[in-house]
């Protein structure tokens, strides 16, 4: 039987206070993060200790993915150094995209078309500045590995309702999510659909509300979430903490993130009810296995929530989202040369270095002739992205265009290869020679009006 075999999560480091500092806050992506980079980070968390060549399919769910035509799952698969014949699919256009992808992945495993499926959900949704809707939104990503062996949570069954209602929407070309009047949306959209999906599932499964260990429930806001949980008959301890005031509604990644948090509690024999909402509702039932207690080494939601840094100001948030006019247009320029990118994909997207077969020197980027022993074309590929490096040199560059100067850059030594890269999610004061850093997939610039990705270093935390 198909189920979840592993999970990972990613919550950006920055927090924007909703009112006074120290009070409720929401997680916000840094200026170099988007749905793709956060999905890669969550996937890396889930893939710890897993042979990446074993992944047969990637499903990427997002409503805020930056391209309309150009697949996110393909970029992610390349960044993760997955097999060339991996099946890649994007799922979008609805807050239910995360559970849509999860269901499709589970169906693929059950049908036998894939043995190991990677499901990713990530969102960085924006509402108009200073609205109540904006205050409820948080950014984040979750990742699940699905399969039939070593299952952590067995997929029991699901129930879905589809609905046509104008409640929450974003039209093509509009940067902001919109919503109809909240009481209408909550009563006739969220509440009615979720109640119908959950009751339908529990009836089919012959499970009473009291037999559910944890209800992992989507919610547009804290109050509606609590109201619907109560209406469904769940007591306080049965409801997975929805993280309002700490993370916020992470869109298509919201229910997946809460599920990752529930799985981290790691007890066998738990019945997990997983519910998302958006143009209808998906409800899925899982039962955890003893394997759940053996899964270790994931950072998951808790680690990421503990790792936080305050966004200095709301204006800085607006600047990061390019909602404030600035002299420096980050989209300016002709952008990447597609042919250069085509040749550099292994170096730039996969961060693949090469190791000389003669002298063993690891070097980056791609060279034809060895830097050390001058042998020609005698190299084996080495993946650097999952390694820890050390800072060999650094500078704080105020001259390079950055929404948040100074731009920290320097040389990082990874397995003997030298990378000249930027450092992100870092306070310049903490930068020291020899400090250990990990690598994180980020937007490097948006020249040409599209996100252009490369790796950066970030302090190992």
């Amino acid at each position, binding site marked *: 039987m198909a189920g979840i075999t592993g999970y990972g999560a990613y919550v950006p480091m920055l927090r924007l206070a909703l009112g006074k500092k120290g009070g409720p806050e929401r997680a916000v992506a840094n200026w170099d993060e988007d749905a793709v980079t956060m999905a890669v980070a969550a996937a890396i968390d889930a893939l710890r200790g897993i042979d990446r060549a074993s992944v047969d399919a990637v499903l990427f769910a997002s409503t805020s993915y930056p391209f309309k035509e150009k697949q996110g799952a393909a970029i992610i698969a390349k960044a993760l150094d997955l097999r060339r014949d991996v099946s890649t699919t994007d799922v979008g256009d609805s807050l239910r995209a995360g559970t849509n992808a999860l269901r499709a992945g589970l169906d693929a495993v059950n049908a036998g078309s894939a043995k190991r499926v990677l499901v990713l959900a990530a969102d960085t949704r924006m509402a108009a500045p200073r609205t109540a809707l904006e205050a409820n939104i948080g950014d984040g990503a979750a990742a699940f590995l699905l399969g039939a062996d070593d299952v952590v949570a067995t997929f029991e069954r699901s129930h879905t309702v589809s609905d046509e209602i104008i409640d929450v929407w974003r039209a093509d070309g509009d940067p902001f999510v919109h919503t109809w009047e909240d009481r209408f949306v909550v009563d006739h959209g969220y509440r009615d659909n979720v109640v119908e999906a959950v009751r339908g599932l529990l009836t089919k499964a012959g499970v009473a509300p009291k037999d559910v260990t944890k209800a992992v429930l989507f919610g547009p806001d804290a109050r509606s979430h609590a109201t619907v949980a109560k209406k469904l008959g769940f007591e306080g301890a049965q409801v997975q903490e929805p993280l309002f005031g700490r993370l916020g509604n992470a869109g298509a990644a919201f229910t997946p993130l809460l599920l990752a948090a529930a799985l981290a509690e790691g007890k066998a024999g738990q019945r997990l009810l997983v519910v998302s909402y958006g143009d209808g509702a998906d409800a899925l039932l899982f039962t955890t296995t003893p394997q759940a207690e053996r899964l270790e080494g994931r950072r998951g939601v808790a680690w990421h929530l503990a790792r936080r840094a305050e966004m200095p100001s709301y204006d800085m948030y607006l600047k990061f989202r390019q909602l404030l006019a600035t002299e420096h247009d980050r989209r300016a*320029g*002709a*952008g*990447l*040369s597609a042919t*250069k*990118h085509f040749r*550099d994909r292994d*170096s*730039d997207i996969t961060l693949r270095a090469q190791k000389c077969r003669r002298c063993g*020197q*690891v*070097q*980056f*980027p791609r060279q034809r002739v060895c*830097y*050390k022993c001058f042998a020609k074309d005698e190299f084996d590929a080495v993946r650097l992205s999952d390694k820890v490096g050390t800072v*060999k*040199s*650094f*500078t*704080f*560059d*105020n*001259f*390079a*265009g*950055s929404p948040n100067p*100074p*731009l920290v*850059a*320097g*040389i990082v030594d990874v397995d*003997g*290869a*030298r990378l*000249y890269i*930027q450092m992100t999610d870092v306070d310049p004061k903490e930068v020291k*020679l020899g400090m250990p850093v990990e690598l994180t997939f980020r937007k*490097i*610039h948006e*020249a040409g009006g599209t996100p*252009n*990705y*490369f790796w950066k270093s970030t302090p190992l935390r």
Partner: protein
Amino acid sequence: MNKDAIRDKVAIVGMGCCKFGENWDKDPQDMIVEAAFEAYADAGIQDPQRQIEAVFCGAQYPSKGTAEVADALKLFNRPVSMVVNYCATGTDAFRYGVFAVACGMYDTVLVVGFDKPKDRGVSGPSVAVTGVRGLPATPAGWFSLCAAQYFQTYGAGREDLARIAVKNHHNGTLAPKSMLKREITIEDALNARIISWPFGLYDCAAQSDGAAAAIITRRELAKGFRDDYVLVRAIAIALGPNPQEDPDFDFLRWKPSAYAAEQAYAQAGITNPAKEISVAQVHDCFTLTELLAYEDLGFCEKGSAKEHIKSGTFELTGSLPVNTDGGLKTFGHPTGATGVRMIYENYKQLQGKAEQRQVRNATVGLSHNIGGAPQACGVCIVALP
């Protein structure tokens, strides 16, 4: 390499240099003509159309290439070639001119280095974003990469860099054609806004427009132009690995400087540069670049630069004055012109014509450029006969 192939075979008989600066009102041709005609006059050349047999030019930002120089000077019906080699461009153009004369192909050659970066509307080089690697692509960011390791290893700091800026600002006030003429204090340098740590504003060279020119000829013909000609003793170019990729780089030096110096010293027969060189113009695109050059060129022991900076070794009155005209820091840095401008300053110093900035007993002058990430270095040694 035949280390004796060019030594003392080529003489500089005339040089010129336009005023460096943000020359908003000057085209490249205005600056090229000013530099070349000063060099003609200095060499006593009455009829350049007849006397100049070949032209070697260097520019990093050329809009028209070789035609920029040929059109400006109306030097047609003869070879005009252009060299690009990062900040060593001017030195490399001069090097090709020296070879052309030394091999006997031409009697008299004009070398022109020039650049017009200030037409681009930006300070510093523009970043062409066609890739994602190698960013941020700011020279201050690149050249600062030795700072953290050097400071930690040898106990140097920003104050040592500031003293270099103070020295070069002082020397610049004594050079009529320099861009900046303002004394600064160590505090000014330390308190200035940070461009790319550890470089504050005063640690960075002044990018400028400019042109410089040289007339060179075979040594046997030099007397026909002037008595106080200066000989080319050695000239070298060396490339090093990109320090951003080089797997065994220690970030305590710039490899290309040591490579080029080794070649040049072999050609010149110099074994003790600190004693045998009387005046030097070194590449001070940033103050740390000058500091590292002291050591990479053998002017002092590795790690000892800060003591020599404090004791004044490299000041106008010191035992080995460096950047006597203010250097890139205050004279300005039009990339292609810089190498030729440095030779101009050494030529004037050796002739005793450096006015208020004249150093004592100058007989051997060295000039040095390093550019790119940096990867390319040029070293030229000139000497009195």
